[in-house]
């Protein structure tokens, strides 16, 4: 069985060009790569900020609002629950979000480079 394929020369030319721009580090390729790096770094920094505020804020909170140290939940003081238990699922959640979003960024980039524009 044969399938008829319509070959559009312009598309092939553009497809070659997009990946080659990247491989040869032409000006366009450089712009593309910088865009990806900026997106990934911005993502990493945003999620790092979530941890800096969520976990890094705790010592300040404990220092400036000492009564929080004496609040008990299920008979356990709140700081023990936050640092001894809740911190770990929190860290994993941030990591999980990063992996999903970073891979999405890379898929978008791959599609941009590989697929010719319509």
């Amino acid at each position, binding site marked *: 069985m044969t399938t008829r394929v319509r070959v559009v020369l312009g598309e092939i030319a553009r497809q070659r060009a997009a*990946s080659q721009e*990247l*491989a040869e*580090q032409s000006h366009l*390729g*450089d712009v593309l*790569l910088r865009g*990806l*790096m900026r997106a*990934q*770094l911005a993502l*990493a920094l945003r*999620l*790092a900020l979530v*941890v800096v505020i969520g*976990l*890094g804020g*705790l*010592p*300040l909170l*404990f*220092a400036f609002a*000492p009564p929080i*140290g*004496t609040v008990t939940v299920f008979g356990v*003081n709140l*700081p*023990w629950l936050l*640092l*001894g*238990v809740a*911190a*770990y*699922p929190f*860290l*994993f959640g*941030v*990591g*999980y979000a*990063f*992996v999903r979003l*970073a*891979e999405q960024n*890379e*898929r978008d*980039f*791959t599609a941009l*480079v*590989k697929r010719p524009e319509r």
Partner: protein
Amino acid sequence: MHSPYTVPAIIVVTLATVMIGAYGLRLARTTSDFLVASRLVSPRWNAAAIGGEYLSAASFLGVAGLILKFGVDVLWYPVGFAAGYLALLLFVAAPLRRSGAFTLPDFCELRLGSRRLRKLATAFVVFIGWLYLVPQLQGSGLTLITVTGGSYLLGVLLVGVLVTASVALGGMRSITFVQAFQFWLKLTALAVPALFLVIHWQSDGRRPVTPADGMVFTHQTTVHFDQSAKLVFPDKTVVAHPNEDITFPAGTPVPKVEAVHANDGAGWLLPGQRGLFATYSLILATFLGTMGLPHVLVRFYTNPDGSAARRTTLVVLALVGMFYLFPTMYGVLGRIYTPQLLLTGRTDAVVLTLPSAALGGGIVGELCAALVAAGAFAAFLSSSSGLLTSVAGVLSTDVLGRGSVRDFRIATVVAGMVPIVLALNVSGLDVSQVVGLAFAVAASSFCPLLVLGIWWRGLTDIGAAAGILVGGGAAIGAVLLTVLKVPLPAWANVLIGQPAAWTVPLAFTVMVLVSRATRSRLPAALGSIMLRLHAPDALRALTYR
């Protein structure tokens, strides 16, 4: 109180380690196989292996000991040890794997094209590796004293020689399987006794951790004092003489000992006893230090590509986080059932002594005691073999030879001898504190190198070298002052004891400023290096020729 099952359990762990290593040995054929496990290791195996290697004596014994002594503030240690993997995931994991660098010195050469920087990085890898190995070996000596009554010397030699031999003969392939096995062993060894301990505490009427009228001995306890100690009771003061055994009947209040710095009473329960500077310094060191530990980075090369490196790191984060739920339980229950450790200051032994102290001499107590001893042994074996592999790896490729299997074996013996000799001669170091200092050195040297090297095009070889020398050098200076116990004024004590809060920003600043001043030395192939680090794996065939 020595369980009859302890020695057999330790022997079983050792035999299993050697046998899994031997199984791997048959698979190790070429040099490439030997060093990087052929990159055939799946993310789950790899993640368990990373976890197995990472959870050292400091995690297995030290964290619980610190919690017993200081309370909620030191929970930042385990949180930071786990969060380090998040920082690694966010900023380093995928680009580092894509760079193709096997070790930190490799990364220096690939990214900045400088042989001299490579040598400097090698020196730091070896220093951090040894700094981390000494407390591992000391921990094994301590364990042998505590659980079998054996000698410190024997424990250090046993673990040191065993690890050196297995690394020299098996290489990393076998180590991967051994490490993965060790992770699950360590988790089981903490989790199962913890379950029994909690059940026991429930049936024991849920004794309060911080009783209103002070801690009491729950059962008759005999304490052996190596040195003289002043025991302060609520109503009297007793002096214990060196080598004296004192027996405290059940219900006696637990005295305070002046020489042991431990938190007592309500302060133990509440945060903020250590000061904000020390807390933030510790957070910075542990969050940023993990990525700079040599034995952690080597593992990333065994991932097939950048995405796999990310997924592996995420699994590690889950595994390590799961593990750290347990040391806290030991530290807390230790307040109730093993307060005698606060009298001698040997709080690092709480994980080992708690099961038999709380569960008694029955079969359950003895089996649990044997299990934690086996887990502790696994912790020393796995961490020290991972560290030794990476130290020997850089020694064999950069100092002693050109990286053949024979060079690697010679380098392993050399790399193993030094920390054994150090551990035999230096004593009195606190396991977790030394490990914390190793993190501070890594965070002040390799963390800025990796983060700036991956994300900033402006980094130069001279800038990187200057940052490592100034920041890492300052951290090493602080470590030496602490280890040698040089007397310092009070304000300097905080800065030196927890140096990361000033050495990490210092390293970043110097690296950026010197790089800007030496802009003419930017690597020529910068564009293709950055492409290699950041191009998605799907584009590798197109872009990486």
